[in-house]
């Protein structure tokens, strides 16, 4: 069986989706996988909508970009960005998103509407990433919470991803590494709890 996974990462410029990408990249590289990861630099990094296309396979990958309707997984660190990037998701794809809105724009829709739309998107995993991250030491680790919540659906074992977090943050000292790994683990747990309560989609806020 050949392995191939297409992941869209979404968020707002400055929210750290490139760190999520870097962790998965490292884990995949050590796992001997082929990788293509397209990212956004430039203008839109100033608080605009940003996305990264991450493709993993055990065979050569041609395109750097993922076509709409074909992504296996959509990982977003902001709920409206999850909706904006939903067109990438395949019918059977999975959506994982942080639920804290970043309101730096006009016309941000009411959160109830955002939530209602998110719940229409397959079997979404919705996490309160900021709250969990703050519990781990800093809101800065929200992106690792989201990565943890997505980990059950990534075609790389969570231990490998955890090791990659350690490698990526090593330069910043043991404390930062520990905090990010904790955030990753809490995110993973929140996600597993949601999967366990299999009454369709639920959110970690009710857990």
């Amino acid at each position, binding site marked *: 069986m050949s392995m191939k996974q297409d992941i869209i990462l979404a968020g*707002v*410029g400055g929210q750290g989706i490139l760190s999520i990408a870097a962790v998965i*990249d*490292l884990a995949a*590289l050590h796992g001997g996988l*082929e*990788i*293509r*990861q*397209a*990212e*956004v*630099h*430039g*203008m*839109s*990094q*100033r*608080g*605009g*909508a940003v996305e990264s*296309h991450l493709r993993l396979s055990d065979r050569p*990958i*041609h*395109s*750097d*970009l993922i*076509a*709409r*309707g*074909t992504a296996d997984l959509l990982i977003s660190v902001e709920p*409206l*960005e999850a*909706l*904006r*990037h*939903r*067109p*990438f*998701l*395949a*019918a059977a794809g999975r959506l994982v998103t942080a639920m804290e809105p970043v309101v*730096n*724009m*006009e*016309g*941000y*829709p009411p959160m109830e*509407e*955002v939530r209602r*739309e998110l719940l229409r*998107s397959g079997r979404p995993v919705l996490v309160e990433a900021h709250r969990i991250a703050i519990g781990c030491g800093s809101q800065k680790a929200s992106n690792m919470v989201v990565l943890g919540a997505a980990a059950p659906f990534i075609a790389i074992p969570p231990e490998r991803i955890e090791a990659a977090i350690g490698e990526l943050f090593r330069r910043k000292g043991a404390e930062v590494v520990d905090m990010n790994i904790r955030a990753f683990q809490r995110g993973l747990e929140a996600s597993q709890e949601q999967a366990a309560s299999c009454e369709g989609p639920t959110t970690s806020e009710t857990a």
Partner: protein
Amino acid sequence: MERQLLLGAEAVALAAIDAGISGAYAYPGTPSTEITEFVQRSGEARQRGVRSAWSANEKTAYEAALGMSYAGKRALVSMKHVGLNVAADAFINSALTGVGGGLVLCVADDPSMHSSQNEQDSRIYGRMAMIPILEPSSQQELYDAVREAFPLSESLSLPVMVRITTRLSHSRAGVLAREAEPQRLLTEPGSLPPAERFVLMPANARRQYRHLIGLQPEIERLAEESRLNRSVGGTSETGVMACGIAYNYVMEVRERYGLDLPVLKTGQYPAPREAARELFSRCRRVLVAEEGYPVMEELLRGFFGNEKILGRLDGTLPRTGELDTDIIARALGLESAPFEPAPGIVAPRPPELCRGCGHRDLFDALNSVMAEHSYQSVFSDIGCYTLGALPPFSAIHTCVDMGASITMAKGAADAGLRPAVAVIGDSTFTHSGMTGLLDALNDRSAVTLIIADNDTTAMTGGQDSAATGNRLETICLGLGVDAGHLRVIVPLRSRLKENITVLREEIAYEGVSVVIARRVCVEEAARRKKNT
């Protein structure tokens, strides 16, 4: 050697370092900036003493690279597509002088204008210069092509262009490097290139031009034999000529839909004539897929006629913007995957000035002064401050090309427009604003130039800016600005009132005045704190 995960831009840099360059010259610009940033971080480059300080603009960068090449060493010069407009004079003429050490220009085009004012296609410049153009499609191929571009440049004694586009530059993939070559030595005094080559007076230029034309068959032969140009067999009636990164999308479609599509991968120009002829003789229709302008398509239409050719010119592919897998699939009459559209509640999220950015406070002050006038246009330029064109500021009304703020304000002032106010960043000012200020001074035009000095080149991620702080005052005074009309303000909310007063006074002055609004970019300040 181990496989490394590199952006396309980084693959260019690593290949150039491994090819033994002694200098990497550039002015930042998306999507090319990461090339030089990689060289600046590289331990190998440091050990080898590779020069990699940012140049003031693309023209100075190109000329420095040409000078290094003249002296016998290998040099890389990189820029974004519109940067080549600035460097074009040096670039085109360097094809006449030829080179000494290998000279490679890597130019990064930005189709879809993710971070640019236009989507011009650098291959047209390459054709105008009549030099070889390489357009690899993957990060590994890019590494290999840049390695080979240096000996190619030396063997033809011509600069070589490597063209990439946004997605290749900004996408990571595993790259296997090869063993590094030693750097080249300074040419012996008696062996430097002769003046007849480098002094482009008409007699020499004519001879050099004939020489360049004489090289064309050899350049074509090399493209014909290049590994960057190759055929992928197939039996279907429709074939594809796929240039550069378009090859990736075409191959993705070929695999996903299980097509038996013959594909001519094109990665070195001038395009391989024999291989194209073969594809056209075999197929009933040929789709020409290329990012940017329909450069190949136009040529092929001229050569093979219109009937067989599908592409951007007949609407099979969109006339503008970058390509992707869906676009290629649609062009081949295939159905792309169904998808759920984004719900109507998803409002756009445009980029914005950071919270706490000094440009915000400058625009607040400027807006209240401009509100006192009936003509309220502010001529501006390219940088983070361009975001001042958007609400809530709507403070600037032009952004055309680097440096155009001061010169357009001068022309408008000459036409009688008052006030004529220009806003420019520090890096844009040293890139190409200084000469415009000199024009205004020489002609005593009534303009007010506001230099937003945030101590960095912020838009592209915080590169060193060629002159900031006191040096800007020195430059302005040196050009001839009256010391009484050279003012410095600190754009802070707490100083709004005094800043309004200064701006009001200088904008009222019937002559050249300069106001420097000086406060470090908050992003840059955070980076500096992190690095200490």
